[in-house]
Every structure is written in C-alpha cells, then in structure tokens.
C-alpha cells in the first residue's frame, strides 16, 4: 500500500459516509445536477444546469471568463449555497451546504485561487483541520514525515517543512492538490490547476490525475487550454454565460466545435502576429543582478515582443520587479533610449515610461475589496485630477472605456474586484496599464486564466501597442504563447539567461531543454 492510500485509508475508517461514493460502479452516475442554479443579487452566475458526472470519468468543463465554472465548483464543494435546484450524490439528494459536508462525502476541490495558510508549513497545511495528535498534542515531527512521504510519493519533490508562502504559486497549487488527494477523495475537482504551472509541473499533475482515476476517483477538470482537455478528458461540458450548452464525449468533438459552443462564434487565429517594423532600442539591460537573478543582459526595441520563458522560480518575475525598481539592483546598468538611467523605485520606472502588469493578481495586481473603477484608475489618478480634486466624469469615462474595450463582464465599475471571475480580474490588471500607457510594457503571465476569445483579443492589443511604437516584455510559463508571439525569446534557468533565440529559430524541444537544463 502506498503512503497515499495509507493516509486515505485512515479517512475511510473515520467516515462511513465516504464509502458511499466508492460503491457506485464505474460508468454509473455518481453526481447528478438537476436544475442547479446560483444568483448573486441580480447576477445570474449559473442558470439552471443539468449535468451528470459518471463514476471514474475525467469530466472537463470549459467556458469563457465569467461563464460560471468556478461558481459551479463552489456550489458542489459547499463554499456557497445554491439558489435553486437539486444535487444527487450516489442517487440521493444532498444539501452540500458546508465545505465539511462536501469533504465528508468525499468531494474535494483544488480552487482557482489557492486558499491555504501562507504562514504555516507545507506539512501543517496538508494536515490542516486534521492534525495528527496524541494526548491532545500535535505530533509535528510525525506530520512532517508523513507529509514528506506523501509529496515524494506524488512525485512533487517539495519540502514539507518549508513555509507555504515561500513557495511559488505553482508549487502552492501542487500542495493544494496533494491536500485534496490525501483526503480519501471520491470526487475531485480541479479549477484551472495548470494556470500557474510549468510544463514539467503540469506533467506531474497529469500523472497524478490519471493515477487517481485508475483508483476509481471521479475527476472534474476546468481549463482554458484546449489541448489539455483533449489530452485528459473523457467527456466535456460547455458553459456559456451561466448556461450549460452541451456535453460531448471527447472522441465525438473537436476544438473548433467546443470554441464555437463556448463563445458562439469561431476564432480563425488565436496568436495574432503582424509584420511590424522593429525600431530603435528602448531599453537595454546590461549585466543586471539582483535578488533572484544574475547577470541578465537583453534589449527591447520599439515594435518588438521580447519573450521570457523558464520554469517557475527561474527568476523572470524577479528580473521584471528589479527592472521596475521594486527590488534593488546590486549590479548592472539600464539604458533607456540610449541614455544611462537609474531606476530607484516604481515611480521612477513609471515616469520613464515602463509599465508592469505583475504576476499575481491577488497579491500584487489588485485591491480586491475596492471597486473595479478605482483599480483601473489607480496609476492614472494624477492625470485624472485637476488640482487636488479628481474629475469625476474623466474617472468614470476612463474606467468604463477599459471595461468596454476588454469586455470585462461586470454590471458596473463600482462593483468590487473580488466579485469578478478569475479571468475578468486578470483583465482589470491589464486594463489598468493600458489606460496608463507606456513605452515599455512588461506583462507577467498576462493570460493566466483568460479564455480563448479574450486571449486573442489581448494578443491583438499587443500588436496595437507595438504599432504605436512601444516594446513589450512578455513573461509566460505557457510555451506556445511566448513561442508564437516573441520576436526574440530568452530562456531563464536558475536566475540566469541560458539561451536566446529569434522568432521560431529554435524548436519547442530546444527551448524546453534549455529551461529544464538537460
């Protein structure tokens, strides 16, 4: 018996409810939604949906940003309560009104935004709410050992004693996955698990998912990446604007049909690359060194996209923050339009004409509990003010324009950013910098969690910025994105630049090899 089964077994014994799910034969309905519905005030996040999940299948759910995917998941895991409808678990109606009930029945989820405690260790997070105790005292050492063996067993190679917050977002996502996997799960939901993962980490995750499936676990998999859906899923359901518009067996459908179902129109081309003349250098970094990166030299010219690829933790975001003045540089020079400059803080960078749309929308990008309009306008209030007072009309116009241009799905600019779906939050971060404008845009993982249609739209925006004479640094862990868009592709590994290629000059395999270091 593996460690994982061993720990899962502990849960099996603890809860009689859990065995219910395992009695359903493979291929029979395990979870049925009948007219399940959720309204947030006026917003119909999920219109009455009827979907059946079969025991032992991998069931993908796809749909645009704000289509209601996360809402569906939160309903199933008891995070929110439904407005109407019925859920049958193993044929019996269930309330699923609290997270504990869902967990007790064996329904678990890895949510889109990691919801663990950043100040606790990885082990403590894995066992949170379920600590190993003797005589009322926690067995910290033992928990760490068990956690480590679970992680090793899953092939994640993460330190169990490390503080969770010190890991990258991708690694935290893996911890959340391990946590769900060890709870004796019958039904496991992944909400965009690969958004922050690199290819290598994704591969580990897929292996785990297949393994869980072979152990009889039913998997629900949400993703904006079509190739993953086709690689993993047995069946796929499509949501559009909160409506369930269809379920297909994977063999009987194709990418175009799914996209057409999702957005009700077809997209000829996602990666939009126009022939734009490349001009004079905007920024030259010479031997930049700082916390997390070393000796980085690169040039960005007008009309050019410079792609930075690498595994998570390779130092790309750190480099971006260093360049932007957020972190002090310990060595190297920055030349801006041919002139040597010193960027001491973010405001210096902005003044020169650098914009940074950061990696983590939750920690760095957004003031979540403040209105969308305020978030979009934050960098430009200086421009929107006359004297000390903000021009209310200008403020409204600027926010509304970004909301319209980026098709941010909101009833009003006054809604807090936290009530937006993940992809729409990402659009707010981008909108903020588009309205600010700059000569050099640094986009750090700009399309994380963004749907296909909007992705195409964002790439078209890139082209527009380039035509206006701007340069772009595009950081992405999603190889096809940088590969298809970057005029020059730099590969990072361990904080260093290990390879540079012109557009399509190297193969995917070459680039991956450099990033992993084989």
């Amino acid at each position: 018996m593996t460690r994982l089964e061993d720990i899962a077994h502990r849960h099996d014994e603890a809860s009689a409810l859990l065995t219910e799910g395992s009695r359903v034969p493979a291929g029979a309905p395990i979870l049925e939604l009948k007219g399940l519905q959720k309204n947030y005030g006026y917003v119909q996040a999920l219109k009455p949906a009827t979907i059946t999940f079969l025991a032992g299948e991998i069931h993908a759910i796809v749909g645009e940003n704000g289509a209601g995917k996360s809402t569906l998941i939160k309903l199933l895991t008891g995070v929110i309560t439904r407005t109407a409808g019925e859920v049958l678990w193993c044929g019996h109606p269930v309330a699923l009104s609290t997270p504990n009930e869902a967990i007790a029945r064996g329904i678990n989820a890895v949510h889109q935004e990691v919801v663990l405690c950043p100040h606790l260790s990885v082990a403590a997070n894995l066992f949170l709410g379920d600590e190993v105790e003797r005589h009322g005292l926690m067995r910290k050492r033992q928990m760490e050992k068990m956690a480590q063996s679970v992680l090793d067993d899953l092939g994640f190679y993460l330190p169990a004693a490390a503080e969770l917050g010190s890991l990258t977002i991708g690694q935290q996502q893996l911890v959340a996955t391990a946590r769900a996997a060890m709870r004796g799960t019958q039904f496991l939901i992944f909400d965009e698990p690969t958004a922050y993962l690199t290819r290598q980490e994704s591969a580990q995750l897929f292996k785990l998912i297949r393994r869980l499936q072979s152990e009889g676990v039913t998997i629900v998999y949400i993703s904006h990446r079509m190739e993953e859906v086709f690689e993993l899923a047995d069946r796929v359901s499509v949501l559009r604007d909160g409506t369930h518009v269809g379920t297909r067996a994977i063999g009987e459908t194709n990418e175009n049909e799914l996209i057409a179902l999702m957005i009700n129109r077809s997209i000829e081309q996602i990666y939009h690359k126009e022939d734009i003349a490349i001009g004079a250098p905007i920024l030259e970094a010479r031997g930049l060194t700082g916390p997390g990166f070393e000796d980085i030299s690169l040039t960005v010219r007008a009309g050019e996209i410079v792609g930075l690829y690498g595994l998570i933790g390779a130092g790309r975001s750190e480099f971006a923050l260093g360049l932007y003045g957020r972190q002090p540089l310990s060595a190297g020079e920055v030349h801006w339009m041919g002139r040597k400059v010193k960027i001491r803080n973010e405001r210096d960078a902005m003044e020169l004409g650098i914009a940074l749309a950061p990696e983590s929308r939750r920690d760095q990008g957004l003031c979540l509990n403040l209105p969308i309009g305020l978030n979009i306008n934050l960098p430009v209030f200086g421009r929107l003010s006359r004297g000390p007072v903000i021009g209310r009309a200008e403020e409204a116009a600027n926010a509304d324009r970004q909301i319209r241009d980026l098709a941010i799905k909101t009833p009003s600019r006054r809604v807090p950013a936290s009530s937006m779906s993940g992809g729409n939050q990402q659009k707010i971060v981008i909108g903020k910098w588009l309205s600010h404008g700059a000569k050099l845009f640094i986009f750090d993982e700009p399309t994380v969690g963004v749907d296909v249609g909007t992705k195409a739209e964002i790439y078209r925006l890139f082209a527009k910025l380039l035509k206006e004479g701007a340069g772009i640094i595009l950081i992405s862990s999603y190889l096809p994105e940088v590969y298809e868009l970057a005029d020059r592709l730099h590969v990072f590994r361990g904080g260093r630049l290990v390879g540079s290629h012109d557009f399509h000059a190297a193969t995917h395999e070459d680039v991956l090899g450099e990033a992993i270091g084989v």
Partner: protein
Amino acid sequence: MTITTTESPAAAPRRGMNILFSLTLIGLLLALWIALGIVTVSFWTPLNISNLLRQGAMTAILAVGQTFVIITAGIDLSVGAIVGFSTVILAWLLQAGVPLWIAIVITLLMGVAIGAFHGFGIVRMGLPPFIITLATLTSLRGVGLLITNGSTISINNEGFTNFARADFLGIPSLFWMVILVAVPAYVFLHLSRWGRYLFAVGSNSEAARLSGVNVNRTIYMAYILSATCAAFVGVLLASRIGIGNATQAEGWELQAIASSVIGGTSLFGAVGSVHGPLIGAFILATINNGANLLNVNSFWQRIITGLLIIVIVYFDQLRRRGSR
C-alpha cells in the same frame, strides 16, 4: 469581439448600500433623540443640546482623523494623549507670554511632528502602528506630567476661554469647528486622489505600490492628519476647560475608534467615510448625555457603549455578507 458587458439595474449596488447604511445611522440618532425627548424633560433644552453638540464635536473631529488611519489598515491609539498634551503645551506657551495665534499654530505643528514620528516608526523602523502609537500614548502623558510637574496650568486668556462657550448663529462654536474640519476632510477623502490612495494602501499596499502610489508618503499623511486633528481638539479642549492638564482626555482614543467603527469604518482597512464617523460620534455623545440625564450609573454608560459597538458592527457584517 462581442461586447458581453450587461448594463443591469444593479448599476450602483455599493453606493446604494452605503446610502442605506448612512440613513440607518441617522435614523438611529434621531430615534435616540426622540426617545430621550419623551422620557426626559431636560433633553430638548437649549442648554443640554448645546452641551451635547460641544461634547460630540470633539469626539467627531478625533474620529475623522482616526478614520484616515484606519482606512490604511492602521490604528492610532495616541490621539487621547495628544489631546491632553496639547492642552499642556498651549497653556504653557500662553503662560510664557506667547501670543495666542502663535501658540495655537505651534501646538498644531507639534501635532504634525507627532504624526510624522508615527509615520517614521511605521515606514522606516517597521513597527506595527499599534505599538508605535501605544508607545506615544504613554510617553506623551509622561512628558506632559513632567512639564506641569503633575499639576495643571491655568489659562488666563479671557477671549480664548470664552470661545468654547460662544455660539455663532445660535449654534455652539465648537460644532462649527466640526464643519471646519469635515468639509475639507470630505473633499480630501472622497474627491481627491490622496483619498483614493488611502483606500488602495489599506486594501493592498503592494498593488498600490506597483501602481505608482507613494505608499510611504500616504502612510505619513494619514498619521499626520490624525495627530493634527488631535492637537486641534486639544486646543478646543483647552478653551473649554481653561486649563492645561496632561491627564485630560483619558480614553478618548477609544471613543474615537468606536465612533469610527460605528460609522461603518472597517478595522481591516479600505472601508470608511467622513460622514459615518461624524454620526457615530454624535450617537455616542447622545448615549452618554442621555445616560447622565436619566441618572444612569456612568459604569453602565461604558457597558452600553460596548454593546452598541457589537450590535452595529454585527449588523454591518450581515449587510456585507448579504451583498456577497
């Protein structure tokens, strides 16, 4: 790309809710006034009303300053001590023969300096706001006592001490001072970009920083405003009681925080207004005033205030949860 943005009747959910909350607070205040008018004969007398306005005025000004700080997710425990200390400084300067206007300006500048010191402690030394302002609270009282040698300094400037007792257009001058502070405060918090920055820093200071907001300056500003409001209240108090005494205004910081919280400010930051704390301060003042008139034991006043805070904040939580 098709535009999927839907304009729904929910166009202004947040603002609608906020107005509702303000109206509830005003309703509560009016209900208290009507009830006290019925059960006591002396509540609606001119003397009592102007007393109520005078007492509420000082808490209200403190609460406005406090709110700026709380919006940045901080706290200023020192305001009560600053009030007491300011009475001492002012009385001392007057005793030394400094002209009144100059003495007032120096007192206010001292408030600025104390606020700047708080900003320095938080931004440069990395101290938690709770700690640095707690430290100021105890040490300022100590410094004040040293200056006065534990006693009080009396103020002999007739014009100055008459000010707090004077009326203007039938309304106590101290209440006019609230308006003097509240109008610019409203413009600052709700109409200027500095106000937006306070909210942004309180919500997510890293996001604010990366958006080009000068986070350090914003924090300095919040604490300076709070301490200056407190010094100003010190001047008003000195005028009212005619003495300088370092032990005055004991516990006023809690009154200010309570007013702010009753007025809808969230101690987690990024939620607050100028009008909320003002109403909150007068609700508290009314409760104290009513309790005095009804001859309720002053110990009970404290208990009632505590319960009120729980009830109001609980309802506010319910309201927020409902809109989620």
